[in-house]
């Protein structure tokens, strides 16, 4: 191999380095600009929700006036309550069904399996408006006339139809999440359990379910978020009177831009981000985070129970008493989950521990506020 002149001159090398630097700088700026674009409007929204005047352009002073107005807005509180009710019901049903379906599709082979699988992905892909109107048509043109003519039942749309619809579009999301978790699942663990004498049910109970739980919880939280945030499907399946949060916001947004909407949006945003954060943590993190959430949930419910005791003493009802006792039982639940939580904490690294405590704190807030909104 002859080596007369260097293959690349020093100048060329320097040029290459400069172009590489410029390239990196461009990439970095592009990234910064895009993140700015994505987050700036939201940040501005949050900032101006604390403005003490009606402007969304000039920040004149700090005030929580708009939030106070929200708290006193009974129409809004009703809408929030409806959202939570629908959300909770949807989550419980959709998570159960979605998990069962994921287990079925993962573990069994049968004819039409791919067709079923594709069909389960369809609701995610179909434009929401199409799904919305299809349900509108279904309820009004098919189900209700059927119920009327065959059973003589006069049915109408309302929170129940909203819930049914939400469950329908939530099941695929839970399914996808749990299915992904199942794909990563180590089957030899189940074989080991069988080898040690556990039958199918025991194996499911002691090995499969505990290891699947983070995925299930992640899916549940996702279902809850999607239900709370939904506008399009809700608007086509609702009754005449009921409102949910997104519906209420929408009606305000169409009218104009005010800090009150900013405040409401901020509240919803914080809630969404909290829930999404919890869901991601549950899905991708270890057991320590689901334990943290368990502790947080118990604590949140228990705190609400404590918080609402004074009202019990003010006006005594049997139902109220039962409710308060149940809520105080939540403290017991919290206490029981605390031990395993501490055990898991000891096994995590410091940054994981911080995240676990944050998770717990967020869960306490979410549960406490939701129960507060729901039960008043």
């Amino acid at each position, binding site marked *: 191999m002859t080596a007369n002149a260097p293959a690349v001159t020093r100048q060329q090398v320097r040029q290459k380095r400069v172009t590489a630097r410029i390239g990196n700088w461009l990439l970095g700026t592009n990234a910064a600009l895009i*993140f700015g674009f994505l987050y700036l409007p939201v940040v501005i929204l949050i900032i101006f929700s604390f403005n003490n005047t009606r402007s969304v352009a000039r920040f004149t002073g700090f005030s929580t006036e708009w939030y106070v107005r929200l708290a006193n807005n009974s129409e809004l509180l009703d809408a929030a309550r409806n959202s939570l009710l629908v959300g909770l019901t949807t989550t419980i049903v959709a998570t159960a069904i979605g998990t*069962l379906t994921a287990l079925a599709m993962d573990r069994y082979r049968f004819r039409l399996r791919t067709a079923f699988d594709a069909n389960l992905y369809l609701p995610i892909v179909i434009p929401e408006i199409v799904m919305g109107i299809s349900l509108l048509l279904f309820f009004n043109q098919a189900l209700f006339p059927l119920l009327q003519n065959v059973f003589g039942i006069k049915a109408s749309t309302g929170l129940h139809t909203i819930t049914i619809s939400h469950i329908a579009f939530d099941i695929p999301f839970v399914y996808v999440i749990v299915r992904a978790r199942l794909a990563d699942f180590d089957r030899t663990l189940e074989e080991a359990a069988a080898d040690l004498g556990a039958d199918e049910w025991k194996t499911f109970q002691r090995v499969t379910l505990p290891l699947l739980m983070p995925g299930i919880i992640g899916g549940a939280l996702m279902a809850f978020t999607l239900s709370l945030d939904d506008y399009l499907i809700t608007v086509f399946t609702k009754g005449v009177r009921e409102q949910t949060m997104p519906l209420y916001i929408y009606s305000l947004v169409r009218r104009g831009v005010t800090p009150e909407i900013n405040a409401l949006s901020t509240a919803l945003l914080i809630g969404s981000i909290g829930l999404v954060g919890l869901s991601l943590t549950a899905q991708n993190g270890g057991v320590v985070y689901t334990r943290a959430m368990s502790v947080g949930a118990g604590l949140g419910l228990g705190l609400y129970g404590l918080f609402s005791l004074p009202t019990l003493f003010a006006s005594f009802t049997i139902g109220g008493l039962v409710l308060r006792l149940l809520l105080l039982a939540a403290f017991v639940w919290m206490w029981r989950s605390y031990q395993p939580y501490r055990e898991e904490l000891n096994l995590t690294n410091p940054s994981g521990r911080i995240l676990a405590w944050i998770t717990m704190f967020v869960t306490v807030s979410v549960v406490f506020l939701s129960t507060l909104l729901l039960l008043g």
Partner: protein
Amino acid sequence: MLKYFRKSKGFQLSGLLGPGALWILIFFNLPILIVLFISFVERGRAGSIKIPPVYTLDNYVQLFNACTSQFAGPECDPLLYVGIFGHSVRIGLVVTFWCIILGYPLAYFISKQKQVWRDALMVLVIIPFWTNFLVRTYALKQVLATEGLLNSFLMNVGMINHPLDLLFNEFAVNVGLIYGYLPFAILPMYASIEKFDHTLMEAAADLGASPARAFLKVMLPLTLPGVIAALVLVFVPVVGAFITPDIMGGGKIEMIGTLINRQFGVSRNWPFGAAMSLILMLLVLIGVIAYFRSSTEETRRGI
């Protein structure tokens, strides 16, 4: 009882799959079929359908020739609805284009960072993806409004004298859609780019390829599945979008989504709305099938 459950696979399967299958069939597949049915039925007085149903192709005919509608005036444009469909597709293409152009470098940038930063940045991308679409669109609206921050800033700085009309036009709708769907593009492209073996680029350079050629001949083909996924994940929802054109366009910008919504609201023509929905669904399905075709080919090539 448990013994029988264990023995019969069919029994187990139907127990597990049953609830999900039933729910989706009854509350998803069936309603879609009903849409199909209603699109071939004549409109009744109140806007829903005539009972007993009268079958007709009029709804579809009306899509291609708007003047056949009973409400058509003398100056109607037969291609009105076709135009709106085309308009939506055009907006879809524009938005998809920008999302990919902006998103790909971002995904590339993130993939080059250290692991810790990568996860953090991806969380920042995912959060908008899952949080309330309505709120995010409103956030953009309040910045672009005539009394909003952008206009005030520009006026204060002296660049303009009157507030710009940034809302209630096609520009606003496009920006709003890009704003809303950018994360949808970034995620799949990032997934693809992350799997990409960067040492291949070094190998290309070693063999004499300039960065541009290395990108075109090595990186782009191998990350194409992600780009195609992004394409489908953006284009399909954008074409059928409703919330963004409604809020950012203020009712002045007509897309398929707003048109369909109108049929179930003010215009009171459910069968026509059903027909439009069906055409939209066909467009969607074509897109999805094209995506599946391309992605399975890639996996078959064994990348």
